């Protein structure tokens, strides 16, 4: 399939997912409520006289992102299972990888939106200054998000036909998220502490490695999840 046609199909799937979510708002509202709850609970759980907000902020941010994203990832392929919509896609001559890339693109859009709204709330709750360091935080957020959305999309496709899909996804996904999320927490801690870029580079390289490996492997493995 020519690249332009491939891109057109991928975009059609992303646009369709965005439209469905825009109309229903079910996953988005759940994810946002979840994000606000996690940020506030972790903030109020600490003793401000013993632990500075900067010490818990990186972990709180990534726990929020990770679990809020899971709400959207869970929904991704459930949407295709309702009414047998996945069959409708599989009948068409489009490459199976285009379905995966489209669904992953839709998930990335969803998670990016949740993160974009969560970051100002995070700044508000934890009183952190990101003056001049916001681009760095956006970079690490984007890199880690690509890694966990890639794995999350694949596992969502894999568990969707199981009886307890919404319970299975976190169980399977969380072990895969440990490496990228730990890297992201390490980089975020250094960004918030105002450390130089050179200190973050090993973690950023690791994250880039996860991105490449996870993206390539998940695209290659997706077709195997479609066999009945």
């Amino acid at each position, binding site marked *: 399939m020519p690249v332009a*046609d491939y891109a*057109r*199909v991928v975009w*059609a799937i992303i646009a*369709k997912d965005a*439209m*469905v979510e825009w*109309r*229903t708002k079910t996953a988005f509202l759940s994810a946002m409520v979840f994000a606000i709850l996690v940020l506030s609970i972790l903030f109020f759980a600490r003793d401000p006289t013993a632990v500075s907000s900067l010490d818990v902020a990186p972990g709180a941010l990534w726990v929020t992102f990770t679990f809020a994203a899971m709400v959207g990832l869970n929904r991704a392929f459930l*949407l295709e299972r*309702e*009414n*047998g*919509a996945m*069959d*409708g*896609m*599989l*009948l*068409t*001559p*489009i490459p199976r990888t285009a379905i995966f890339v489209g669904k992953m693109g839709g998930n990335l859009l969803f998670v990016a939106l949740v993160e974009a709204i969560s970051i100002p709330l995070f700044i508000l709750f934890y009183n952190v200054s990101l003056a001049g360091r916001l681009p760095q935080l956006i970079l690490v957020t984007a890199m880690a998000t690509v890694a966990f959305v890639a794995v999350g999309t694949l596992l969502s496709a894999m568990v969707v036909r199981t009886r307890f899909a919404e319970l299975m996804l976190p169980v399977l996904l969380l072990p895969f998220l440990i490496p990228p999320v730990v890297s992201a927490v390490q980089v975020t801690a250094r960004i918030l502490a105002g450390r130089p870029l050179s200190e973050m580079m090993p973690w950023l390289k690791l994250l880039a490695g996860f991105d490449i490996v996870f993206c390539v492997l998940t695209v290659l493995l997706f077709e195997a999840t479609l*066999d*009945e």
Partner: protein
Amino acid sequence: MNEPLLAAQDVSRRFGYRQIFSNVTLTLEPGEVLALVGPNGAGKTTLLRVLAGLLKPTTGSVRRNGTIGLVAHHSMGYDALTARENLAFAARLWGVSETGRIDLLLDRLGLSKWGEMRTAAFSRGMIQRLAIARALVHDPGILLLDEPLNNLDEPGAEVVLQVIDELAERGRAIVVVTHQFERIAAIATSVGYLVGGSLEGPEPIDGRAAEVVSHKYRSLLAGG
């Protein structure tokens, strides 16, 4: 002689230890309408999914010389989208131009008035009409219909039968899985009985009355 649009050779399908059907052989020429009858659980839907390419046969092979249009038990659409958006999405995946085609299908299936309505608000009959429109969006060479008259009112059923007849006249190959053989009899050119895991036929209908087919079907069910 025309090249068959669909040819299944010694197709079997098993789920785990359960053999659904075995050694199914059939060919569909252009213009042929095969009515596939069989009791509940006989494997008609599974056979249709194998013919469509959604399921791999355990043994045997299926050759398709055309694109597939499938009407299954589910609508294959999205409740949050309108009828028009659902058809447009399908058209984009098939790489066909939406211009005119969607209006034509909405009109043909009697959905013009509801084209801008989200399908979550559709009745079952409207969903069924939309599912048929969706299956036709790319003008498929082979049409596989699983109980296409389900949930349809009388005018809706008439429209669908007319559409099937028109498509057959235009050289499409059509398989109709049905429990309402009497309704399909007028347009079917052959009939196959999927009973006890094997396919009897397909055999030409040759103008035989629906009662004759029904009698044979009952006899097969009774093991006669």
